[in-house]
């Protein structure tokens, strides 16, 4: 039996311990905001926060999550999350929207660690998140805007 905290609530899982966190979230917890995109940690659509850091849930066996705290797009809170969401909405970042949960989870983590990121910081933190609609131009702008609003 694996026990972990999911968006602030105690959860348990007693299925196959190899099951990636992604499928536990989607199939068992019915939290579908976290997306499948590649299954091999290449695209970042499945990004969640595990004990405060970004994690690709598609390659994270649930067995390694025992005792940990998981935050998904449905549960992310705080001033960085608020600033990122507002910035995303203000300049209409999403197109198809499928990758955006992962983009936002990575962007929030970046701002938690680096409140005033440079373009290079953004490249470093966000290069693992693919957007096939190529909304990158607006993602970069929105992260800068979010940083500005947090400062101000």
């Amino acid at each position, binding site marked *: 039996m694996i026990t972990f905290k999911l968006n602030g609530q105690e959860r348990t899982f007693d299925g196959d311990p190899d099951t990636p966190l992604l*499928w536990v979230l989607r199939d068992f917890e019915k939290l579908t*905001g976290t997306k499948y995109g590649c299954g091999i940690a290449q695209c970042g659509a499945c990004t969640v926060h595990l004990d405060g850091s970004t994690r690709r849930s598609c390659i994270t066996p649930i067995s390694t999550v025992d005792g940990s705290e998981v935050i998904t797009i449905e549960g992310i809170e705080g001033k960085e999350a608020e600033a990122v969401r507002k910035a*995303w*909405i203000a300049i209409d970042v*999403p*197109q*198809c929207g499928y990758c955006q949960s992962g983009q936002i989870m990575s962007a929030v983590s970046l701002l938690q660690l680096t409140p005033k990121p440079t373009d290079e910081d953004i490249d470093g933190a966000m*290069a693992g998140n*693919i957007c096939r609609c*190529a909304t990158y131009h607006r993602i970069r702008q929105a992260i800068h805007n979010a940083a500005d609003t947090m400062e101000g």
Partner: protein
Amino acid sequence: MTFNALTTTRRSFLAGAGLVIGFTLAPKVFSASALEGVQAGGDKSLSQINAFIKIGTDDTVTVLSKHIEFGQGPFTGLSTIVAEELDADWSQMRAVHSPADDKIYGNLAFGLQGTGGSTSIANSYDQLRKAGATARALLVAAAAAEWGVPAAEITVEKGRIKHAGSGKESGFGAFADKAATQTPPAEPKLKDPKDFVLIGQELPKLDTVSKTNGTAVFTLDITADNMLYAVVAHPDHFGATVKSVDDAAARKIPGVLDVKTIPQGVAVYAENTFSALKGRDALTVEWDLSKAETRSSDQLTADFAKLFGTDGHEAANTGDVEKSFGGNGVQTLEADIVFPFLAHAPMEPLDAVFIKAADGSVDVFNGAQFPTMDKKVTAQVLGLDPEKVRVNTQLAGGSFGRKAQFGSPYIAEAAAVFAATDGKRPMKHMWTREDDIRGGFYRPMYMHRMRGAIDANGNVVGWDQTIVGQSIMAKADLDETSVEGAANLPYVIPNLRVISHNVSLAVPPLWWRSVGHTHTGFAVETFMDELLQKVGKDPVEGRLALLSKEPRHMETLKKVAEMADWGSAVPEGRQRGVAVVKSFGTYVAQIVEVSTGDDGAPRVHKVWCAVDCGVAINPNVIKAQMEGGIGYGVGAVLFDAVTLGQGGKIVQSNFHDYRSLRINEMPAVEVAIIPSSEKPTGVGEPGVPPVGPAIANAWRRLGHGAVRRLPIVSIGSV
């Protein structure tokens, strides 16, 4: 089909409403969470004013989008058109997908209901203006009757219906029911475009908020109680079929329920996705390659080249091309350009959910780009009357052409997987990224042979282009999609010949964001640039001199040159390239600034983009589509190819060897929209074609030689 035939009678309005009622047949096993995902037709408690518009008692106006929303913006664009003529306030607008019905929701550009060819705005513009104006007239008639005042004295502004004389005022909701029973005008009065208050504004997109908090529902997110999860093992050769299956190990995986061979491969059914994937991994499948494509990409290229000089389909032939190459002092240039197979690789892989109701009817949930085709094919595979199938179009995580398929092969597969069950449990069928990259329906391989002639005065006098590749439209004769952009060359060249050869392969072809222009735009714009460079002409001035019959090309090109301050000093180590391509009625010119990166690959720093798409419905969406089209095109031209290795085995499998552009590789983009009163044309695809040749032109000017084979950066190839 005309709008009038659809909508001037009350009866036809109700025909639209009747389809929505189909949802009451949703089965009991359907969980609440699944119902939340249902979008087709929207909330049935709303008053249906006409086929495209529902109004709620809370004053919300819901537009039924006949086009799928996968990021290109029809929810916002179509709602803008309706809101404009309805005089609604933007804050009250909502959008959902319409049901599947060719008669009511057909694409007026091609009859069938479908999204593609960048037609969503273009084919809906007149139709939805009339729908909006009709709904406005019905609301006014209802208010006039209720208030006992002449309709002519009633005004509507920002969602408020007012009668100045009596001081009466109301929102739309109070009159929604009554409006639905009024007689619509035969010809509703449309606004003079100069009076538009919403069209042309940068209105916020309607689907943004749900895409920032995880609540937007895609097909993969549809969840029903007691649902089966299915994946299919596919061959790694095109045209291969199942010879034998050993499923003993797969059946021992906890959670695996069944394994069945279907025409497309071997289906594994499980209690959850991971068990299904693990079960698939445990299968041992022997494939029959007797009808498979066993040539490698290199062999295909060699076979394509053999067709040059043989009889092909003539797409253009003006003047005397052969003679133009033989004149005194004529210089010639020749080039062969090879284009690879390209996968679309939308973020959401193909998927579908099937739920059978107690009466035997079936709900299909998928990102339906051709909803009525999907409906027909599902019915065929399941052996049902088409009226027993309801296609519920969902938001799709991209498509780029992938989900628009004649004969709906992926829905046929998903339906076959469902048909092999007893149908008692809902079923989700998912493709993995590997299935997607190796699944075919690619932008086909093409090979172009280019010949150009320049006379003693430095004028381009002869253009001879031969294109070899698969016919996307499966034609035996000339396929216009193979030669679009070349056969109708915008440049005035007195002697022009374009020949096309169709080849037949077991690799299924498909349109890929901007279709023929993906390769013709590259071939034409790089070869023209080389010809101009050969005679020392400026790439912008040289093009303008040849575009005398194309004023909109000229204006777009001049605009982008002005934006980039063309001719000004370029930073050390960088070069600029330009290209202009008209596709789907929209004119796009781009200038790129490129250097050689530390890894020896092109580094694209900046893209200036000018676009003329007629009336700009929503500049925000237009700019976003240019930005996205540029990023999609840059990634493909730099990195992407699906290749067949020795024996025809597919080489690539996932994003590690079928590279997507990443944020650190995305250029800065600046977009300008040419003001226009021409009818609006599409923007989903036209941003793509110019960027590849513009990069190649800059790359050549950096001294790297002309690009003769794509992608420019070769990874994972054989």
